């Protein structure tokens, strides 16, 4: 079991192993998307079935409900050098578990304020509601978020950690 190596994590994306885009030197962010299994994750699958295209910079992490997402996960990701984090859940009111995403909405709203207060660019942490049917919305959201974060450039982890 490898111990997490902060320096390595803090290193810019272009240095990473077998990250193909490195060749053209253009910055490719790494974006982690926490997705509710019942809506956004399904939406992503649907985007696949429809052979839609979106940037490959985003990685989905499946959770049973957006209410499961603990802010610590997000902090961890940003600290360890993720350039952006996306939290996706069902539309408020449509939660598969009745009320989960209401808590997410409240929790993440406060948390986002905190991060921005700590100096994080708003684009780096976003919360979106995407249903299992909204493949198009998923593609558009991901594309947009990726572009925003590419524009921002790599996250300065040390600064983050310092804060």
């Amino acid at each position, binding site marked *: *079991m*490898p111990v*997490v*190596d902060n320096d*390595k*994590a803090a290193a810019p*994306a272009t240095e*990473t*192993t*077998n*990250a*193909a*885009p490195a*060749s053209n030197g253009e910055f490719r962010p*790494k974006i*982690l998307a926490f997705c509710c*299994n019942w809506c956004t*994750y*399904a939406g*992503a*699958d649907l*985007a*696949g*079935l429809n*052979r*839609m*295209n*979106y940037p*490959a910079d985003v*990685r*989905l*992490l*499946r*959770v*049973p*409900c957006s*209410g*499961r*997402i*603990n*802010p*610590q*996960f997000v902090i*961890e*990701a940003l600290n*360890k*050098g*993720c350039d952006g984090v996306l939290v996706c859940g069902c539309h408020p009111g449509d939660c*598969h*578990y*009745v*009320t*989960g995403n209401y*808590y997410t909405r409240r*929790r993440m709203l406060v948390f986002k304020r905190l991060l921005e207060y700590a100096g994080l660019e708003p684009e780096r942490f976003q919360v979106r509601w995407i249903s299992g049917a909204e493949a198009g919305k998923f*593609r558009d959201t991901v594309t947009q978020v990726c572009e925003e974060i590419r524009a921002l450039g790599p996250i300065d982890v040390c600064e983050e950690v310092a804060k």
Partner: protein
Amino acid sequence: MSRIGVFVCYCGSNIAGTVDVEAVADVARTLPNVVYVETNKYTCSDPGQASIKAAIEEHNIDRVVMGTCSPRMHELTWRKLLSETKVNPYMLEVANLREQVSWVHKDKAEGTAKAIDLIKMAVAKVDRNSALYSVEIPITDRALVIGGGIAGMQAALDIADAGHPVTLVERKPSIGGKMPQLDKTFPTMDCSACICTPKMSEVGNHPLIDVRSYSEVESVSGYVGNFEVTIREKAKYINYDSCTGCGMCETKCPTKVDNEYDLGMSKRKAIYKMFAQAVPSKPVIDAEHCRMLTEGKCGVCEKVCPTHSINYKDEDKLTTETYGAVVLATGYELIDWGKLYGEYGGGSYPDVITGLHFERIVNASGPFEGHIRRPSDQKEPKSVVIVKCVGSRDPNKGVSYCSRACCMYGAKHAHQYLDKVPDGKCYVFYMDVRTPGKGYDEFYMRTKNDGAEYLRGRVSKIYKEGDHYVCLGEDTLSGRQVSVNADMVVLETGMVPAPGSRETAMMCGVQCDLDGWVTEAHPKLRPVETNSAGVYLCGTCQGPKDIPDTVAQAGAAASKVIGLLNKPHIESNPQISHVDESLCCGDGACVDICPYGAIKLIEKEFRENSRKVKRTVANVNQGLCQGCGACTAACRSGAMDLLGFTNEGIMKEVDALCQW
């Protein structure tokens, strides 16, 4: 030291098209604790699965990562596969290399890079997985249906016909609900009682249906498969075992009371059967009015009863039983317009009546043997005004929603009136005409051709002038103020939830919306389930609807119940919340956040440095927990964790991603 096996799938060219599968496999081999990596053209095929089994045996693998299509597609397949090996089915992670990589990215290099990350994340997580075992929750093969209207009866029949015992609880002395009170049903105009009463007797005679009339549900506890339900049977003062329902008592009873069944337009006795075809076809004594029970004199019924079934000393009985499933069918009530509409006389005018009154009036077994007469003086009304949306679509005085059936029964009343009083005039005031349904709009057009005058507008005031009633309205289509002199006014009042239905729903852990209608699990995809497993709903307790919709929904609810009761037990989902009692501070944040009431605080004794201490800790009910994990994020002390999606596991996933 875990031993992880990674299996990457080509999925023909589906994955291999944009992902260099072998490159992925090579990286996988370098990952910690990975002892075996295999690629396969079609992993889900039988040979594919066979080689996985073999590999597990050969390399003594104890956890598995599948680099294949979406877990939503095949996770269950893999679990099943593993259940046939020594690997625990929950020692599994799926990297979604198809729907979320190969199908959405064109650049092979990018695709491969992403695939590798996903494999890394999966490996990191599975390394932290622990074996999970679902417990078997036994299911009591008996269903409880609350409410004996057409919805409840239909559900009960369907469940019982499938061979499962049913208890049908009805608070009135007879089952049947509102439907037998109606005269005809739109748009086919077949006699309501004629199609309803056979169902009633079918229910009454069904060997598997236990009808508990004049009874109410007192309390519900437990969870899916095992609901502990207490039912209160109100005192009937009659021994139903011996009573033959001969009716002698009813004919001889000297006390006359307003008959609720005819909405006070006729009289009944103090010992009475609700109506001729009542089921059970036996009377009850109305304790409020019986002279024997109130004044202690009379006793006629006791004297005349040939089977000596009268028992003035009878009392409420409480019985508790276990049920596997519960169906809510508590139905509706008509909105109490009198309190709300002073401008319509506030209920003081005898001839300003509701649609249900009209149903009784026009009904052959009603107060006027089916001749259309108005209550005040039994005269035949020569002009009738029908007002729709009374109480409905009126946030100011009533409710904001549309009651859905009124447009049709309004048209029906107009049609019936014009049919029985050919020389009569009929005016219908409406806001909009909503007739979505088979043959509904045709019926509406027919009614207009029968001569019903449709006026688009709300009536502002109804007042008595001489022996007729003046209705002031506007015909908004012509922009004219109009007034109509009516002999009788029929208010098509909206539906509201039956009194007590919210309380009943709450007992079963089901929420109601602001209007008091029971909320379904999903408005489109789970219309007859509720958010507490094992509790289903049908009919108007969920919202206003007409008879066809109600019956259809009842059948649907029944099929869900049958599906549940057919199993001897259900496998609980082991991916549920788990409390680390050593960390739990017992502040109950999780209790408040849990949408299923699955978490309770309990007093528990612990040994802490060789001393016994009592502490309050959270406790998760395996039957109720659905595994959403809301409690884990709410837990301040970090004692709550979600098995299958543990804090550590997710953290490791995150870390893994961050090292590419």
